[in-house]
């Protein structure tokens, strides 16, 4: 091993340790955690099917990123076996009813492996978060019981998520056109508890719990077209059938899942500047009352060499679940960078996102620190 290699390895380890510290550096007591409160009354908080690289650009590079599980067609250009994983820690301030709460969540939303299996065929497998369903709600109230106003504290919790397990394949049909398709198995579970503690200890605490298991199925397809050197467009569509919730082998709910479609535009005017934009539509209103169809958009750029780029992005759109007649909205800005190590066989991506969601009298402001690891052995 040369001295340069040792330096590179040392920097890689140092950066990875820094990334780990960013992920786990959380005040132990002051902050508490959960996913977006907009998802409590709905199915949950939809996941972001983007790698750290894509998310650092607001998601605009998602349709063109082979490591983002949004589209399959970019897999056709993956070139070699690649594995990736991502993690993120969100620090959230929630303003509702004149009060502010500080919440925290740490997620490990993406893991996948992809690689070519034939000259014109690449496949990928992995999982990403389809719906986050972790929340913990406490409530103080009272009601008349046995002729006496009884005060109580409720705590209802859900801990878990629905994962999207994807098996994808992509092929480059020509120099300009690549296509891809995937099947998606939705699977997951949540541990739910409902507790009530009365101030009057004569009433025993209410403690009920259940493991709720979820399943569903979906298919998706996508196409990537190179219109001209440095100019590409992408389109994708996806259909999931329904999300079935089962408690102790008994179906407790069946919820229709949305159709989704989207597209993107990639402009690469020079090797050191890349620009992208994307939009997507999702018919979440099929999920029932309190759910809305959503439009989302994103735009972003990546500058510099691929060994250490600078990324910027912005995104906006609607949140599928919320109270009231209109869908809540969200807008976010992000930036990030990455570093290649070990002669381009390992990548660490770092991202920082500032998000604001508004709707139904609630405002969420979120800082999210993202760390991605990619290995090409």
């Amino acid at each position: 091993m040369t001295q340069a290699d040792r330096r590179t390895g040392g920097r890689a380890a140092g950066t990875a340790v820094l990334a780990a510290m960013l992920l786990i550096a959380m005040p132990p007591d002051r902050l508490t955690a959960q996913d977006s409160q907009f998802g409590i009354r709905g199915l949950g908080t939809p996941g972001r099917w983007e790698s750290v690289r894509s998310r650092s650009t607001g998601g605009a590079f998602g349709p063109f990123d082979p490591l983002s599980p949004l589209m399959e067609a970019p897999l056709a250009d993956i070139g070699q076996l690649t594995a990736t994983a991502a993690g993120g820690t969100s620090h959230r301030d929630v303003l509702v009813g004149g009060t502010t709460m500080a919440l925290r969540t740490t997620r490990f939303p993406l893991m996948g492996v992809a690689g070519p299996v034939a000259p014109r065929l690449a496949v990928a497998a992995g999982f990403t978060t389809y719906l986050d369903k972790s929340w913990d709600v406490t409530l103080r109230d009272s009601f008349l019981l046995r002729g006496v106003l009884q005060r109580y504290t409720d705590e209802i919790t859900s801990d878990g998520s629905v994962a999207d397990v994807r098996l994808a394949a992509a092929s480059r049909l020509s120099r300009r056109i690549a296509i891809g398709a995937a099947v998606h198995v939705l699977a997951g579970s949540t541990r739910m508890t409902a507790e009530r503690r009365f101030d009057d200890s004569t009433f025993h605490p209410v403690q009920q719990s259940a493991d709720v298991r979820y399943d569903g199925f979906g298919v998706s397809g996508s196409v990537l077209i190179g219109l001209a050197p440095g100019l590409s467009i992408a389109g994708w569509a996806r259909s999931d059938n329904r999300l079935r919730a089962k408690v102790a082998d008994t179906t407790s709910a069946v919820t229709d899942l949305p159709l989704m479609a989207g597209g993107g535009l990639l402009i690469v005017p020079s090797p050191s500047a890349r620009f992208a934009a994307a939009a997507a539509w999702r018919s979440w209103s099929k999920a029932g009352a309190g759910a809305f169809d959503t439009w989302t958009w994103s735009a972003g750029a990546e500058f510099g060499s691929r060994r250490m780029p600078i990324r910027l992005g912005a995104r906006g759109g609607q949140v599928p679940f919320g109270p009231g007649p209109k869908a809540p909205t969200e807008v976010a800005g992000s930036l990030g960078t990455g570093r290649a190590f070990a002669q381009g066989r390992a990548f660490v991506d770092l991202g920082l996102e500032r998000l604001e969601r508004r709707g139904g009298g609630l405002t969420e402001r979120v800082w999210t620190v993202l760390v991605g690891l990619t290995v090409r052995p």
Partner: protein
Amino acid sequence: MTRRRLALVGAVLLVAACVERLTAPGHCPDYCPSGQITIVDTLLTTSINRDSSHRGYVVSYQSPVMLAAFLPDTTATLDGRPIFRFNGFGPRLPVSSVDTGQIRGADSARLQLYIVRRDTATHNLRLQFYRLPTTIDTTTTFDSVAAAFNNAPVRPTVYVDTLLAQPGGKDPVTGDSVVVDTVNHRWLLSLKFDAAAARYDGTSDSGAVAYGIRIAADSHASIALGKGTFGPVLQWYLLVDSLTMTVARTPGALGARFASFVFNPPPAPLDSNPVTGGTFPYSTLAVGGVPSARSLLRVAFPKFIRDSSQVIRGTLILVPAVPARGAPADSFVIEARTVFADFGGKSPIDPRLGDTTVIHPDSTGTVKIEVTNLLQLWAADSTHPTVLVLRAQAEAQFLGEIRFYPSVAAAFRPTLQVTFVRPFPFGVP
């Protein structure tokens, strides 16, 4: 090397990412789960049936205490009298390692008694000792020894309050003393019996003696004397013949071989009409008393509660048919338990869980016993008999007894008030 480090860091990230702590105040209904905890409170007025009472579980001689009381009343004076017997040493006693001598009599004796329960409101408590026939046993009744209690006391009355007021609790004139155990709330009386009070007849009675005690006080004359470890102890100081010489001998102290108490009036029969002059066409549910009485309540526990809900409170509601009987100061505790199997009055009681309430003599108010844990047991174990047993927590240790209306008394029958939770709609968005 670098790859290994990266793999290690990746593993650290995995572990870190799995650590969660969750909680946040809810703002309902917009930002709360759609499902809510649903509480239902219901009064089961007809679920208790086929109830019955049984007496005789613990009788007076089996009680760990001897009850003494004298509570005058316009209708029936409550009179409880401890009785106990000491067996003797027989006609002879060793005077040396090889010889025995005829016991000529007793110089004196010292009797130790523990007062293990008393009413702090009792004033001028007095104890009188009577010689009883040494034939007293488990069949002895109040009437059978009434004549002996009409004789003169064997020794002067013991004024406990006066004795307590003496320096060191010792009366230098009578030789009596009292020691107060403030930790265990017991009084130890040590009373001197002279030769007349402590007659030792080794020939005809083998030295056995029996005594009975009557108590009195300015008010609330009701105490309990200990038995067994804390029972009466008699120390003889004997005079023994030794080669025509009379020598003093102090043999080992004797514990009472039999200790019990008798009382009057006896408890009314279970099938009697407890309402004087009233029309009361059924037996009541008796709990407590001596011999102790228990009542069985068979509960038709609703299937909808048992199978699909969580009981958070259950209250057994009982209406007394007559005022609770007993010494006014001797409030007693009754408990509700369940049984392992329903064999009527001989049902084996499940000792694991029990719920209690305090009964105050002369009270007529509705009695409520929280039986939540018993109902939870029934809900958790569908094979468990749904039978409640009511009994005194300290059976035969109090004269108190309470009688409740049974299920056939439609207007006052025992009822169960149950608060339960319906299943939470888990999994419903």
